[in-house]
């Protein structure tokens, strides 16, 4: 059960953003979807094609079904939460909370991660090297119990009954999965949601236009910030580089990736290198000391709208993040988490600290802002289909 337990740390939350309950499904919601058409990727310039598992081929119809399920509150045991409750499009599919809150009110150990470009990831969740496929990850928030997210553990049959009971779902599933007599299954639910998540591609920010040859797309300050990002002084690009501004991507032509996780010196309890219990990263799975505090580097795309930051949301602002790295780690003076993270023995060797002038800090903010993809945050293909 170690793996099952570990899979459960995906993080969702935010009851305040819970979307439509059963009764709110509008009669005039655009439910008609085309079946049988191959999916045509709408990739930003320079983006590779995401990998798709052979047993879950993409189709436009499946993506649309996945979108409806993503926003479906029948997907939670108490019918109050959907995937979107913790993954709000306007926040690049994060929730604005330091740590997610599940459908039953349970506070999670992790912050909700952005779903932008999740289809390119080689690893999922914050600190789980075992989660390598979207279809596997999608099971976690639905059926996981440690912590409870959507809360459907042991309610697989109930979920199927619920979806069969909504008159609009049987024909949708039949359209998407035409070769089976009983297409409403947990497996097909997961496949559809994963297919929708796979098309949540963000790559049309001002920075992308600059990268693709328009020197006027971003400000001179943003260009200076990008140079700092790529500098030996800051070394940001090591963990946040490439087209996706993170370090574990896979795609067509690049199917395998090394699992990379990093201890950034956020904590150093008692000078032992320890992180707070429940927030120890890969160590929680392996028990290997050097895995203490190691987490996946999240994408920097849309980073200006995904506060708070770090796996536990313990940095409220991007300035807090910069201060952390400038100090080569965070010092907590008092309390149970007291310690000098800069001296964490398991810290990544590239985090050595730096100084920033006010102009340099402003330049970095300009660069971060240039990564905000407004078209992604408002793309009608990704909005709640149940809302009129």
């Amino acid at each position: 059960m170690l793996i099952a337990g570990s899979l459960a740390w995906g993080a969702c939350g935010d009851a305040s953003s819970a979307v439509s309950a059963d009764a709110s499904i509008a009669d005039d919601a655009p439910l008609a979807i085309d079946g049988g058409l191959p999916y045509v990727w709408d990739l930003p310039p320079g983006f590779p094609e995401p990998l798709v598992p052979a047993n879950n081929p993409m189709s436009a119809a499946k993506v649309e079904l996945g979108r409806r399920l993503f926003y479906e509150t029948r997907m939670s045991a108490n019918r109050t939460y959907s995937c979107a409750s913790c993954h709000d499009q306007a926040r690049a599919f994060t929730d604005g909370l330091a740590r997610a809150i599940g459908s039953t009110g349970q506070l999670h150990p992790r912050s909700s991660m952005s779903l932008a470009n999740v289809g390119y990831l080689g690893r999922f969740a914050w600190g789980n090297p075992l989660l390598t496929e979207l279809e596997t990850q999608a099971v976690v928030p639905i059926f996981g119990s440690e912590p409870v997210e959507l809360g459907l553990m042991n309610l697989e049959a109930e979920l199927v009954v619920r979806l069969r009971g909504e008159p609009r779902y049987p024909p949708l599933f039949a359209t998407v999965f035409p070769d089976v007599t009983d297409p409403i299954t947990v497996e097909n639910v997961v496949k559809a949601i994963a297919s929708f998540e796979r098309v949540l591609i963000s790559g049309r920010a001002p920075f992308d236009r600059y990268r693709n040859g328009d020197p006027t797309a971003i400000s001179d300050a943003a260009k200076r910030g990008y140079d700092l990002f790529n500098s030996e002084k800051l070394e940001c690009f090591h963990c946040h580089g490439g087209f996706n501004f993170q370090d574990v991507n896979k795609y067509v032509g690049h199917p395998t990736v090394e699992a990379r996780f990093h201890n950034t010196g956020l904590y150093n309890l008692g000078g032992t290198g320890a992180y707070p219990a429940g927030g120890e990263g890969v160590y929680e799975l392996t028990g290997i000391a050097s895995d203490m505090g190691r987490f996946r580097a999240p994408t920097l795309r849309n980073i200006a709208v995904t506060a708070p930051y770090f796996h536990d949301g313990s940095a409220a602002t991007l300035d807090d993040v910069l201060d952390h790295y400038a100090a080569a780690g965070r010092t907590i003076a008092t309390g149970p988490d007291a310690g000098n993270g800069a001296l964490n023995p398991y810290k990544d060797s590239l985090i050595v600290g730096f100084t920033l002038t006010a102009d340099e800090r402003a330049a970095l903010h300009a660069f971060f802002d240039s990564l905000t993809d407004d078209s992604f945050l408002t793309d009608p293909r990704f909005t709640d289909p149940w809302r009129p």
Partner: protein
Amino acid sequence: MATLTLPAAAAVALATGCAGEHPAAIDAMPRQVVTEAKLIFTHEAVEAVLSGGPDDRAIIRLTAPTATLDWGIHAHADGHTQNVVNETARSAVDYEFAPPLSARWFLRLQNQGDAALSVDVQIELFGAITWDDWQ
């Protein structure tokens, strides 16, 4: 990225044949050859790691369509950065890297041009030095 690895017996013969006054002689066949066309966007920096020491050698060949490639090799040891080589505005590089000490050596490439740059990278590895891909 493509790599060519010689049979283990050949690698052993190479290592033993080169022991003594000459570390990892480069007139023998390389133990491994890494070839890759690396696309680097405007002002983007990328770094790969070569892990090795004084007994090792690497031949680094870089070819770019325009002379906008900055490149260099450095290591971070004991909190300091040790630079072995840094060159700017190059379109071709043919360099024999002899690590002065055992370390993780970063091969850094940066495109200083205003357009994306496809750099043909060929790294020949001699001795025990390893290529740890782009970091």
